[in-house]
């Protein structure tokens, strides 16, 4: 999944935290409005929470098969209502969920999932293997146009069969290591043919027919406003999965990050994300900073280089650009220190991440200048005029200016800025009509397979760098098809090392966000949370307060 660079949420750049400066006005208003009644901090029930998971607005659909990648936030709701064969725990290990166990055939091409006998839908019906077969077939049917089906297609699924009511078999064309991760994606949740066929287009829009087998169910859907979740009474604790402790969750659909943050300040949210523009203000605020929790996730931001454009086709030039950036300083200056500097592609928390990898790309102004001179551009002389492309927006502009200034400072090269509307930016990337641009990758599931072939492979759909190395592709293919994770990680380590050597992208930082959480709320966070806390909502605990 590509991270979004549009600055969707800061249309209204007001610094709400500087409320204190408006005291004179407030006093005036107090005189006008005597009956000041506090509406804040009154929660109806102690175990009810309000949170803005749907920060991209009304979900397009809550049909698990059809959720769209552009609005993956809606998965935050689907994941509560449905339980796939496996589910990721807080360490992002796929754990038995609707299945109580699974076996892999010795050649790695056949997965047999054994379903729990006590799995129940919210209407009391048993969860059965044919319901999984129905769902996976529907997902893989091109007529459904399911965006997330690509993961199931690229896994090379040959057939899916319900052998009996509790046995579900997946056959693959060739071994595919991350299949358990795929089986843990919400898109492959079971579906009830009777429910879907009774109202093909509308079953997922009506809480009455939106039955699931997960820990929560939708009790109310007020369009454009909120969705209410309550525990599914038919759901029983099993394996590592508890019954939810929360009695009700109000999921808001506020698209403005500023407005959501304001709602937290006024007491209408139990936890919320801090908008970029407010990071420093919150960290320096005596009341708010104790509530702040920095979280990083499986998203790496990098600067992507068009490796066929002169002089970026020279690896030495790419390495010089990488060594000219002080990651620690730019994380401090551009993200208020919330992000984590990085020198390699795989972020911490991903299997295969290596802390020490990429040291040769670390900040070294002298070394960078030497490399540039070696490439024939001593002190930047004769360096062609390149452009840094970015989508319009204040945050992107500030970042692009910052990078260009550092390169000028350290290497003496003059790189121009090229701002464009997001659609044009996407097009420039797809057509490789750019020199230097922002880029990055967010894990779709916590397996390194997701990070190499699609992004850096010669045929990769997201390889915007025109980077193509047959030896890299071979290494990655071995990693994707080997059986044991330990074996696969050896190949992925080789691939990571090659990316550090070839520098198609300059890794910059791992995304970090700042969360504000009420003192009485305990979240269980994973590095894969689209909205922090939305992954393991069944583990969120509200203490008496």
């Amino acid at each position, binding site marked *: 999944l*590509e991270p979004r660079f549009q600055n969707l949420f800061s249309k*209204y750049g007001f610094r709400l935290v500087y*409320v204190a400066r408006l005291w004179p*006005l407030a006093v005036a208003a107090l005189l006008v409005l005597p009956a000041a009644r*506090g509406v804040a901090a009154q929660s109806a029930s102690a175990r009810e929470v309000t949170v803005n998971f749907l920060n991209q607005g009304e979900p397009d659909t809550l049909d698990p098969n059809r959720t*769209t990648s552009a609005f993956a936030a809606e998965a935050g709701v689907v994941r509560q209502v449905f339980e796939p064969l496996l589910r990721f725990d807080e360490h992002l290990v796929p754990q038995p969920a609707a299945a109580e166990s699974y076996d892999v055939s010795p050649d790695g091409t056949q997965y047999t999932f054994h379903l729990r006998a006590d799995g129940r839908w919210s209407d009391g019906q048993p969860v059965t293997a044919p319901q999984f077969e129905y769902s996976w077939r529907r997902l893989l049917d*091109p007529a459904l146009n399911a965006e997330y089906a690509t993961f199931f297609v690229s896994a090379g699924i040959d057939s899916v069969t319900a052998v009996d009511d509790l046995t579900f078999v997946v056959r693959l064309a060739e071994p595919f290591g991350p299949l358990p991760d795929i089986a843990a994606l919400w898109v492959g949740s079971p579906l009830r043919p009777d429910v879907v066929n009774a109202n093909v287009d*509308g079953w997922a829009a009506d809480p009455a027919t939106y039955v699931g087998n997960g820990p929560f169910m939708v009790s109310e859907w007020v*369009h454009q*406003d909120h969705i209410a979740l309550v525990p599914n009474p038919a759901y029983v604790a099993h394996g590592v999965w508890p019954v939810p402790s929360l009695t009700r969750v109000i999921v808001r659909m506020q698209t403005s990050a500023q407005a959501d943050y304001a709602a937290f300040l006024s007491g209408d949210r139990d936890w919320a994300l801090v908008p970029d523009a407010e990071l420093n203000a919150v960290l320096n605020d005596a009341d708010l900073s104790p509530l702040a929790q920095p979280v990083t996730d499986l998203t790496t931001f990098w600067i992507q280089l068009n490796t066929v454009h002169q002089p970026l086709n020279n690896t030495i030039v790419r390495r010089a650009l990488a060594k000219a950036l002080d990651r620690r300083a730019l994380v401090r200056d551009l993200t208020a220190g919330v992000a984590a500097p990085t020198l390699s592609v795989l972020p911490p928390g991903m299997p295969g991440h290596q802390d020490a990898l990429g040291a040769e790309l670390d900040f070294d102004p002298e070394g960078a200048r030497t490399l540039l001179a070696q490439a024939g551009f001593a002190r930047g002389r004769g360096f062609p005029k390149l452009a840094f492309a970015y989508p319009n927006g204040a945050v992107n502009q500030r970042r692009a200016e910052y990078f260009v200034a550092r390169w000028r400072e350290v290497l003496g090269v003059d790189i121009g800025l090229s701002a464009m509307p997001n659609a044009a930016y996407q097009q420039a990337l797809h057509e490789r009509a750019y020199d230097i641009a922002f880029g990055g990758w967010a894990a779709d599931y916590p397996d390194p397979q997701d990070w190499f072939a699609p992004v850096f492979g010669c045929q990769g759909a997201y390889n915007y760098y025109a980077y193509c190395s047959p030896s890299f592709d071979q290494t990655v293919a071995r990693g994707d098809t080997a059986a044991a994770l330990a074996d696969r990680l050896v190949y992925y380590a080789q691939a990571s090392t090659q990316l550090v050597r070839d520098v198609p992208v300059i890794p910059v930082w791992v995304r970090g966000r700042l969360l504000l959480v009420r003192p009485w709320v305990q979240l269980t966070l994973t590095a894969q949370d689209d909205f922090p806390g939305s992954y393991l909502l069944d583990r969120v605990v509200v203490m008496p307060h």
Partner: protein
Amino acid sequence: VTRFIIRRILWLVPVLLFVSLITFTLMHLTPGGPWDKDKPVSSQAVANLNARYNLDKPAWQQYVLYMSNALRGDLGPSYTYQDRSVTQIILGGLPNTATLGLLAAALAMLVGIPLGIIAATRQNSTLDYAALGFGTVFASVPSFVLGFVFIILFALTLHLVPTSGWGRPENYVLPVLTLGLNQAALLTRITRASVLDVSRQDFMRTARAKGLREFLLIRRHMLKNALIPVVTVMGPVVALLLVGSVIVEQIFSIPGIGRLLVQGISQRDYSLIMGTTLVYAFVIAGLNLVVDVLYGFIDPRITYR
């Protein structure tokens, strides 16, 4: 009067056809289509989708198909919200936009007209200057600034009302103030100017010379004449309130049709754009009709033909 109204209602048909035709043309001329997303969609999928939404047919056929369905109240399937029809979506949002718009219109009238009259009858007094100041400030501060100032002041500092949301009475306060005060300012200025204009007329001097009490003078002679321009602007004012709600709905996250229109445009959801535009056009044309009819009650000199 009945014949006038019937004729005007019949006129709505060509007006709506014209609006729909322009919207349809502009929408299809705008670069980018509903399937241009960050993630590339396969050509097979695009073909399937185009067939489902009739986009594979020539443009004129699409238009004719759409309009014939629209006449039967079916505004088509939404491109974004796959599980609901546009008619359902709009019917869900319209009551909220209407509530917001009507409350704001009521506020605008209740504040703007009396304030304008008071200001004019006490011209150049402190009260007049205060009213003028109100009129200038709230007419010039855009709603996305005013909305956030109100949030900071009333929600975050004073904790009187919630910052956003919809459904409970306390949710209505800030959006209605934000939307209504701007138009109240406009009405204040227009009422004041119009009352001043009328009060300088000869018949006012005559009435005053006859010794009519000031209250009766204002009520019988001045208001009736002074309110004609005010009624004229009420149509556009209510229309502005409906259109202005697009921004206010965003700020306060109100589930109305203004937000739907904005989302529809940014996601090239053709049927949602057409549907919301037609509803807006219908409401605005209808309001103008109401205003035209109201003229007759205020000014008997106006006849309907």
